């Protein structure tokens, strides 16, 4: 009977193809939305793991989180280096890790920090060693792959953080790669990590505690730096004397979560932002858009179901005599229902398979061609358990669309149907 179903579907090939396409588009839309939103949320969660609070200059808390946790926006400004010590002295603070931002190399951000930062995100060395002296750099897995940089490779950072190559270069201050990190699936894969002092040094700022590796660029030289073409905000974001851009804080006790944000916000020029709060606010904003698209995709699937229903109803109406004949030559009622149901199920299964391929294909294409999506770590290779529900829904639509006309046919009188057809 499956063979007969396939023969009927082949017999009206155009109609079959259109219905499969229609259902495929609905399934693909839902799959794309599911993969996109789940991977986005997953990525947000992983990048923010272990970071309970971020302290930075006053401004938009979301911007602070985006710039210092996800490294996608420009920072709100700088805070004095003392902030780090101030936070470390607070009860309930397990870790306070400074970040100094401002430069990049081939679009990859150079982050002045401490070895505790990669440790916090669970990154470990693939080869080489952790940065120790200023101008030593450890690069993320993707930086290594994309730039082809190996150990001992020297490179010059450029000023600015979005497409840093366009900004002025710090030619006189090359970095040297001393270590490469294993892939983590987090934002750290796309970062170049170095000591905070390196960032100061590049911009000619004296470290508060003099250090032997410092090359002695003066503040005057720094002032002469060509900052043409950088925005005021980017300039503000630049680490100025003994400042850092943000401090990532991990709490050691739950009390800190209650007490610390208030404490920080009372300080002049400081603000505290909680990644979980800001991300859920961002996702709820994006979520409204996603919900609208999701509703549209569901509508598309229901339309596909209706189209299959109409196609089968019309086809079965034309085939009433065929079915009566099938009954006469020995097909049971169950076999007839099974045959029609399998037609609906085959259509739905083909539509679902097409939709899955299309959905993953579009994600793959988007990740390959749209830099921002690639940076978000969008991957077509990951399968979400929710896809099984989408496929199940598609199959249910196909089955229901087939069973209604099949039951109608079975209620008819074979002798009468044959008499009318004779």
């Amino acid at each position: 009977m499956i063979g007969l179903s396939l023969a009927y579907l082949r017999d009206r090939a155009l109609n079959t193809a259109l219905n499969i396409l229609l259902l495929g588009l609905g399934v693909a839309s839902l799959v794309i939305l599911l993969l996109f939103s789940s991977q986005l949320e997953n990525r947000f969660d992983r990048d923010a793991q272990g970071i309970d609070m971020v302290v930075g200059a006053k401004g938009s808390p979301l911007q602070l989180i985006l710039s210092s946790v996800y490294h996608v926006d420009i920072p709100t400004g700088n805070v004095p280096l003392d902030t780090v010590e101030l936070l470390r002295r607070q009860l309930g603070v397990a870790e306070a890790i400074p970040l100094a931002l401002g430069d990049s190399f081939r679009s990859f951000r150079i982050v002045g920090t401490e070895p505790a930062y990669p440790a916090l995100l669970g990154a470990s060395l693939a080869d080489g060693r952790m940065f120790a002296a200023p101008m030593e750099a450890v690069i993320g897995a993707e930086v290594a792959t994309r730039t082809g940089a190996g150990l001992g490779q020297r490179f010059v950072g450029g000023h600015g953080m979005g497409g840093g190559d366009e900004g002025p270069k710090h030619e006189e201050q090359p970095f040297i790669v001393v270590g490469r990190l294993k892939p983590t699936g987090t934002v750290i894969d796309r970062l170049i990590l170095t000591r905070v002092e390196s960032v100061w040094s590049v911009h000619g700022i004296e470290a508060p505690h003099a250090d032997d590796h410092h090359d002695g660029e003066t503040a005057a030289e720094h002032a002469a730096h060509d900052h043409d073409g950088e925005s005021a905000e980017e300039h503000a974001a630049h680490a100025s004397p003994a400042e850092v851009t943000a401090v990532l804080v991990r709490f050691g006790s739950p009390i800190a979560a209650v007490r610390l944000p208030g404490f920080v916000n009372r300080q002049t020029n400081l603000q505290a932002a909680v990644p979980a709060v800001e991300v859920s606010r961002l996702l709820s904003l994006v979520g409204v858009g996603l919900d609208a698209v999701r509703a549209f995709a569901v509508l598309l699937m229901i339309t596909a179901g209706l189209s299959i229903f109409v196609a089968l109803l019309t086809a079965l109406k034309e085939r009433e005599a065929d079915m009566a004949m099938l009954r006469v030559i020995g097909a049971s009622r169950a076999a007839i229902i099974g045959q029609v149901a399998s037609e609906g199920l085959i259509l739905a299964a083909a539509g679902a398979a097409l939709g899955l391929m299309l959905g993953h294909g579009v994600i793959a294409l988007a990740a390959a061609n749209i830099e921002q999506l690639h940076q978000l770590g969008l991957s077509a290779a990951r399968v979400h358990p929710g896809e099984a529900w989408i496929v199940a829904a598609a199959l249910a639509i196909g089955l229901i669309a087939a069973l209604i006309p099949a039951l109608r046919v079975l209620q008819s009188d074979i002798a009468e149907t044959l008499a009318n057809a004779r």
Partner: protein
Amino acid sequence: MPSPDTLNSNGLPQGPLVETRGLSHERAENGVSRRVMAIGDWSLQPGHHALLLGPSGSGKSTFINIVTGLLTPSHGELRVAGEPMSTLSPAGRDALRRRTIGLVFQTLRLIPALSVAGNLALAQKLALGVVDRAEIDRLIARVGLAHRAEARPRQLSQGEGQRAAIARALVTRPRLLVADEPTSALDDANAARMIDLMFETADATGATLLIATHDGRIAHRFANRLDLVAPQAPVTAAAA
């Protein structure tokens, strides 16, 4: 009732293949019960091909529907191969029909989505549970459609379609081949050829023919005739 499994001297099962007792059928129309077919007692012996002759409205199709178990008679009973077709459950009738009866209709009732060979294979699969390719090829060749085996029904001429329908009815090796108006749409030459083919293939497969028609052109070919007249009173004639 003799067992249908006992064979007579011709190698055919003993006992009538079709047997009616006081068979008639009434249909309610506008609240009034009207007799649409009356046969009374009649029997069809294996190998004695029979013609059911009568004008439109004489109840030929009603009788065919009762023989094939698609309709329950209002009076009397009908047995097929010794089994009480008229009183069996719907599933029992389906099974009996599947085992013993092949049907050929006036209009082409092949499945349009399947080739000629595919139609035969489906019929075999449904009736016997297995597909015998050799038997299918043999039957298709026998009805002269070897070159059209893979053609779709809509690609066949009317004559070819009729022959394909006969092959489909015989592919399950039925003991009774029932045909409803198999020749009425054909010209004289093709009608004669069709009857030749049905006799020949029925004899080759051991099937007994029961042909309902109002086509007087083929009447002389049958020794065993059941003449129906509208509206009632059946007249049987066993001689020719």
